[in-house]
């Protein structure tokens, strides 16, 4: 059964066609990779899935429910979480507070409970704080919980963003270039985190430039080129597809 079904998705900015009629199904518990050259429309695709962009045509549905025109927070409420290509952590909050912010939809704090600091309230807050710490450990940032996000190096900020997304208990996690710009050691850790998350039952969709990483992780791969779906299939199929080789390496002349 497909979790995310995309049908005829198109997105136009004036005369520019960022996405042109993309249709694909992302199965329950897939580790789905979207690859393609720069400007292929990968991030635009993510923005359409999460409500940041209103597609010009086509539909996106989650478990059969149309989410095409939903606002960003409503899409989040259905269990879709994402990270951003240009890491968007909250700079002047500590790592721990960043992760806690991801729990917004999970806590049901009443105003009165907050003001009075009722025992139930405190217990709930305590539990969330502990869980946030566990997610920091999960991505290998246990000792950074009190450091301001702005003071963390790039690779750590990327992992912090993943922890924040996971705090929201997503059923679908969208990762926009999780391994871009991180060191090879950190890359290994990231791969481990992604794999573990996927194994725990989360459907993972990732945009990635690193083809090797995609082949190593993904169960299913879609290749975009100039806003169109070029190929979709298993990593083996995609790797050997002549059109993909052409798109990435260029066609042999003559």
């Amino acid at each position, binding site marked *: 059964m497909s979790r995310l079904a995309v049908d005829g998705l198109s997105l136009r900015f004036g005369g520019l066609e960022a996405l042109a009629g993309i249709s694909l199904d992302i199965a329950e518990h897939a580790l789905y990779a979207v690859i393609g050259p720069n400007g292929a429309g990968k991030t635009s695709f993510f923005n359409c899935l999460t409500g*940041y962009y209103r597609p010009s045509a086509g539909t996106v549905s989650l478990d059969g429910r149309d989410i095409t025109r939903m*606002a960003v927070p409503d899409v*989040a409420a259905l269990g879709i979480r994402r990270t951003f290509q240009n890491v968007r952590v*909250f700079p002047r909050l500590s790592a721990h507070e960043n992760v806690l*912010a*991801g729990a917004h939809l999970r806590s049901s704090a009443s105003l009165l409970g907050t*003001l009075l600091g009722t025992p139930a309230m405190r217990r709930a*807050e305590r539990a969330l704080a502990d869980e946030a710490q566990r997610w920091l450990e999960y991505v290998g940032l246990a000792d950074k919980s009190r450091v*301001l996000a702005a003071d963390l190096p790039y690779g750590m900020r990327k992992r912090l963003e993943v922890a924040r997304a996971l705090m*929201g208990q997503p059923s679908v996690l969208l990762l926009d270039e999780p391994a871009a710009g991180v060191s090879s050691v950190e890359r290994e850790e990231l791969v481990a985190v992604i794999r573990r998350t996927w194994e725990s039952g989360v459907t993972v969709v990732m945009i990635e430039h690193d083809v090797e990483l995609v082949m190593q992780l993904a169960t299913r791969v879609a290749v975009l080129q100039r806003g169109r779906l070029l190929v979709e299939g298993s990593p083996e199929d995609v790797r050997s597809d002549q059109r993909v080789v052409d798109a990435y390496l260029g066609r042999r002349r003559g």
Partner: protein
Amino acid sequence: MARNRSALIALAALAAAAILPETGQGNYVMSIAVQIEILMCLVLGLNFVVGYAGMLDLGFAAFFAIGAYMTGLLSVDLHWPILATIPPAVGAALLGAVFVGLPTLRLRSDYLAVVTLGFGEIIQEVVTNLNQTGGPEGISGIPPLRIGGLVVTTNDGYYNVFLVLVLVFVAVSFRVRHSRLGRAWLAIREDEDTAQAMGIKVRRFKLYAYMAGSVFGSITGSLYGSAFIAIAPPSFGFNESLLVVMAVSIGGIGSIWGGLLGAGIVVAFPEVFRQFAQARLLVFGVVLVLIMVLRPQGVWPETGLGLDRAARVVAQFRGRRGEAVAARHRAAGVERTP
């Protein structure tokens, strides 16, 4: 560790504040102290809007005015006790917050500042021109605050009343800061678009910030009216709004302790500089500019006083200089510095 130190400093300040009336200060000092407390209350209110939710608000005095005038009207014309006038004052302020908030919260930064500025001006113009609010003369003869059998009539008395109010506001600010509501505000301040991805309904929470601010502002206004017996439009103009914004930014945007310190600086410095006579506001201005240049993050920012960080920077600088010296020695062929 930094948190413990902040708490210690705060406790010491509280102890000093609590015994101030007992130290036999004159009326002059006590009335300045009351003014500081009032500004502290307003600062804590504006802190929800500017500090937590990150929206510039240049018309905050409007809520202060709504509180003061509601209390003035109800207590003088209808002889309500002061405490009973607070709920309707808060209600009116909440209405005002929704009125200005709903249509404008889709605006960002500069535009929002202009609209809030306009709202502040409108409220001041309205109370200046309505006969019911006493026009330019305002309202006088506001009765003293009664709490049970206790009637507060002296400066010292109001000093204590506002001290309690400051403490309550501080406690509420801290509670809210570390709750779902506060975290949503901070996320919006840090990055509105990303906050949405956590499921935060940005416009709704921005409205909440206005409402929270208006509650603090109007309660302060209610008690202000009672403390000063008479109220008049000039106390609620753009200057007052600006003073609150100034205190927030000097102290450190979003910082509770910083805001309190900022209120103290903004009220006390012009008094301290009285020896410069006519030039005192000039000196005050220069001091403000110096503070913002030397400490743009505020005197006491949210992230703490920064003593640990300063020590780290110094250590790093020393370390780097040490390395540089070592490098020079190496270059000169010296194996090891003595």
